[in-house]
């Protein structure tokens, strides 16, 4: 054994003696990935935001200036679009939470184990279909002579048509599973004994819901809201398909790259959702929602 000491053995002995180096090498690949691909892309975005474009030739001019940020803050149209986007994202989140909670509750607490599995699959099936197919399906449904108008017409009502309302409906539909699944996971972890104990202590069902279930499930709801909120914030396709004339932050980014070929300004606008999400995450971190992801 002592005579034959292969290099691999020597190497492992070396790393055994240097635990910090061992850890460093083990972590270097994921850290490089995180550093280069993720933070690097964000950093590039941030730098580009300070540049400008020669609108005629479309070439990026690498002169540093705050012009893009000045435009972003002084031009009222971007404020309007930001507020509209945040409004849509909040509305989608609230609608999804309201729809998802009872569904998740029924799945986690009322359904039999067999039904639970089937329900989880049923909730996930829409995720297997293409985003575009679902969005265009809503375009057809919301059309002037689509199914929704047809259903409402006997009551003298008409469908919402294309616009902000249609966008909220479509996005709520698209992101609903991302809200149901975290709440379901959270409620499933909630021990039944707590509910029983609440009942034993004389609480009526609403009181149990308000004082026991909701506080314990709240972090899970917030965890779901991170998905629905951030996905809505960055969306530009649904609003293009069913949004009529309205635009969201994503459209401004898209138009500045696709139409105006103004990458720097697109980068400046793209920083807005990043900042909003950072603020949102900082706020929800206190609820412990991040441990629920």
């Amino acid at each position, binding site marked *: 054994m002592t005579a034959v000491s292969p290099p691999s053995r020597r190497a492992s002995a070396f790393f055994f003696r240097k635990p910090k180096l061992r850890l460093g090498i083990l972590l270097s690949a994921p850290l490089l990935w995180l550093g280069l691909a993720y933070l690097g892309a964000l950093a590039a975005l941030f730098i580009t935001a300070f540049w400008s474009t020669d609108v005629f030739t479309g070439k*990026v001019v*690498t002169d540093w200036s705050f012009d893009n940020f000045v435009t972003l803050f002084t031009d009222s149209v971007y404020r309007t679009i930001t507020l509209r986007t945040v409004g849509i994202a909040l509305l989608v989140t609230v609608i999804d939470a309201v729809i998802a909670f009872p569904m998740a509750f029924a799945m986690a607490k009322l359904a039999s184990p067999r039904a639970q599995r089937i329900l989880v699959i049923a909730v996930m099936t829409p995720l297997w279909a293409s985003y575009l197919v679902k969005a265009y399906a809503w375009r057809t449904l919301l059309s002037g002579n689509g199914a929704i108008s047809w259903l409402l017409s006997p009551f003298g009502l008409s469908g919402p048509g294309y616009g902000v309302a249609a966008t909220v409906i479509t996005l709520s539909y698209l992101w609903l599973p991302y809200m149901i699944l975290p709440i379901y996971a959270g409620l499933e972890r909630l021990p039944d004994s707590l509910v029983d104990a609440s009942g034993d202590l004389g609480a009526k069902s609403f009181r149990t819901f308000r004082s026991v279930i909701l506080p314990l499930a709240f972090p899970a709801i917030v965890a779901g809201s991170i998905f629905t909120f951030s996905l809505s914030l960055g969306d530009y396709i649904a609003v293009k398909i069913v949004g009529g004339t309205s635009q969201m932050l994503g459209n401004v980014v898209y138009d500045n790259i696709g139409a105006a070929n103004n990458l720097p300004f697109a980068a400046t606008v793209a920083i807005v959702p990043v900042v909003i999400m950072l603020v949102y995450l900082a706020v929800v971190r206190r609820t412990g929602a991040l441990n629920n992801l």
Partner: protein
Amino acid sequence: MKNRKTLLAGLCGVSLLLAACGTSGSDSNAGSAPGAQGFTPPKLAALTQLGQPEGQLNVLAWPGYAENGSTDSTINWVKPFEDQTGCKVNVKAFGTSDEAVTLMKTGQYDVVSASGDASLRLVASGDVEPVNTALVPNYNDVYPFLKNKSWNSVNNVAYGIPHGWGANVLTWRTDKVSPEPTSWSPMFDVNSPYKGKIIAYDSPIYIADAALYLMAHQPDLGIKNPYALDDKQFNAAVDLLKKQRPNVSEYWADYLKETQSLKNADAVIGTAWQVTVNLAKSEGAPLGATVPSEGATGWSDTWMVATKSQHKTCAYKWMDYIISPKVNAQVAEYFGEAPANSKACAEMTDKSLCDTYHANDAAYAAKIQYWTTPIPQCLDGRTDVKCKDYGDWTRAWTEIKG
């Protein structure tokens, strides 16, 4: 904890540096010094002779220009070209000129069918090179009034091969709109009876349509060319579009989306291409289309060769093929436009089409306000004012959409 923060900060620093290195230097030869037409194009030479076909060709085209059977299995003029030349064609369709300009920057395409609002930008940025028309035999038959125009040549150097031209027409549902419109007024009137059922084009260049309308309805603004707008004229056009917005149901950039809207009567009147009208009609929508009394904006398209193209022989063969009488007729008939080749009219299945599109009519062609890129030097020849450039148009367009 402290260590971890330092590590993260260090990583950010490194990636910042890398990012800076990676993206700087992308700008070195901006060629936009003022010249004869407001800019001097980068010095590039045209191809001197054809070689062996390279076996591949990446075509960037308006929808309907390079049909390979994917939209309609019976419509295919790409396959005969592939059989003749051995150049395998990959077609990518674009929705707006802006999209085409952006896509050309990737360097992945060999030829592009550029409209006037894209062509000069492509020339100025050096993304396309001059064309040796001697290598395109069919160029001889192209109508003279399409050659060496301001949007396909610079200082009399040809930058492409004319393909066809036409107007952005007014279209309407004949079952929902009456009387038959003869003016753009139903589109721009704030009290339009078709409120909420109007569909308009989604591109900054659409501001020119408003300017064209003002040319006829507010002559005191003194607009001579809808692409040469000073502050006052520009603001008037932008205001008109802002007033139009509440009446608009949708802006379209995807012609298939527009077709669907017209078919479902979600929109009953709008600006369209003849191809959209033809397509919607073939799917059963009762549509009318016209160039209204105020005239119309339009396009005159040019096939251009990418500077970075690796398949230039195939590119030249494509340009010659696409304007050959028979194919030019097929494209013009399918798309609904006037062909560039004077011999194409004889090849049309419907002999009346050339009259419908005024193909031989230089005077009519002169009446259409062709898309062109707005630049600070006023295109109508005024030197006492500065005109709004395309950057201003783009910013205004975001503002109009709100």
